[in-house]
């Protein structure tokens, strides 16, 4: 029986809906099993699960980066599987993604990395620079000319977060940013994400452990071996 984790909505408008979604890799590896979940607009959802529990898979599905093996996903009322390539690209531009291992372009400066989504969404260069500076300022990162390979993993996470918010996304997916951070840095990151949720951004944060200080608005969902539990 599918587990529907659709309780405690912070708004009554569903934004991401998973309906009996499964994701298989190859013939045998079932990363997500029959998951049903509704994430509401401007909700802050915390997805907790151990390594290999299926958190990253769920985030990739919610971010329309992958398609489910079975079941149905709706993001903002649209089914990504039925969208045309350019419409899907448009949808992805409204989703900010911070992967567990941030994919940063090591030969480009931090500023250029953060500008990239703005340029790809046809912003002028001036506006892209302004947005990138604002995003980096928001995550409190000042070394704009640094190269990503020179940065610590925490700093890389912040740069990836800045890149994720540069297009002012409606949905922010953040994969395990706090596991490798000390307590203060983890709390700062959580505060930051909470502020995004307060300002109307829907946030789905995956983590291996429960944070020391649980954000007040957060809804907690657990995942274990690809199965969602309350």
């Amino acid at each position, binding site marked *: 029986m599918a587990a529907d984790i659709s309780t405690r909505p912070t708004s009554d408008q569903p934004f991401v809906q998973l309906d009996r979604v499964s994701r298989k890799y190859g013939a045998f590896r079932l990363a997500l099993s029959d998951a049903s979940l509704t994430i509401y607009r401007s909700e802050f959802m915390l997805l907790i699960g151990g390594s290999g529990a299926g958190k990253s898979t769920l985030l*990739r599905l919610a*971010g329309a*980066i*992958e398609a489910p093996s079975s079941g149905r996903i709706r993001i903002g009322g649209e089914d990504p599987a039925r969208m045309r*390539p*350019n419409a*899907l*690209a*448009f*949808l*992805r*531009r*409204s*989703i900010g*993604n911070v992967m567990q291992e941030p*994919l940063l*372009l090591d*030969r480009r400066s931090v500023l250029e990395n953060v500008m*990239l*989504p703005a*340029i*790809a*969404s*046809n*912003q*002028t*260069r001036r506006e*892209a620079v302004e947005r990138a500076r604002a995003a980096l300022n928001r995550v409190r990162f000042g070394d704009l000319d640094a190269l990503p390979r020179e940065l610590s993993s925490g700093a890389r996470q912040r740069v990836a977060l800045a*890149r994720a918010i540069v297009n002012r996304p409606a949905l922010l997916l953040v994969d395990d940013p706090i596991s490798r951070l000390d307590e203060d840095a983890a709390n700062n990151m959580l505060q930051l994400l909470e502020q995004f949720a307060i300002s109307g951004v829907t946030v789905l944060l995956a983590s291996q452990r429960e944070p020391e200080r649980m954000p007040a608005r957060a809804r907690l969902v657990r995942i274990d071996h690809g199965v969602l539990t309350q």
Partner: protein
Amino acid sequence: MSWQTARGYCWARGMRMLGERPALTFGGVLVGALALALPGCIFMLAQMLAPVGSRLPVAEVTAFVAPGTGAAEVKALTSRLEVMDGVVRVRLIPREQAWAELQRRMRDGQAFTEIKPNPLPDALAVEFAPRTAVPTVEATVAAMRKQPRVESIQADVEWYRRLSGLLQVTAGLLVPVALVVALLVILATVGLVRQLAVIDSAELRLLDQIGAETDFIRRPFVYAGSALLGLAAAAGLGLMAAARVLANPPLEELGRLFGLELGLGYPPWPLILAFVAGCLLLGAGAGNFFAGRQIALAKAVS
């Protein structure tokens, strides 16, 4: 304007793609230039040999007229020879002219002054049409031998047979060799553009994830591929120019020995422009194709 920013970004991105890998870019341009210069040089060679080739293999035989043949009979014989298969021209070399020429050519002309009377016969130089088949020449020569008032025939048909064979083989090989070389050019350059796309698969994956449209993702590869082959074409033309500078003095010397005008000339300008445009398009097409494939691969992996 924002579309200019996106295109400017893609152009800068494409150029940086080449600049960030100087060894690959330099190697690519070099391989491409060599590969493109080779058919270019073959073309210049073919262009040089085409007029020479049509002149060289002309078969020519000499029919010596029997002594005591009158002018009217020589004229009638000339007319009969002119209508023979493959013959385009028959030229009379009077015995007096042949004798004077022989004396002029010999160092010790004195020895000839003592020989009297002139022992040479009138001769008819018979010229065949260019590229006349060897069996036709042989049959015509045999028919000439049977003509009345013909004393003897001097014909080096074996030389003509060898030269015709050599030219036929050369001409036959030229097109397939040029095609094979052109194919190698395409494979080599397309392979290099492919390398660029393979190296940048992580970036392709990222661009796909952040919602960049397909055109935006592909365009840097299109520009980079086009620039790579454009540079290769320019360098190839440079190599052709260098080959021309190096080869022309000895070729001209050789030509003087054989009374021919030998020398490599540039292909016509429209052909050069078409060549460069073709390279630009080929590079762009290869960039577009491999970026597309790599995006699909990156999606499958992620």
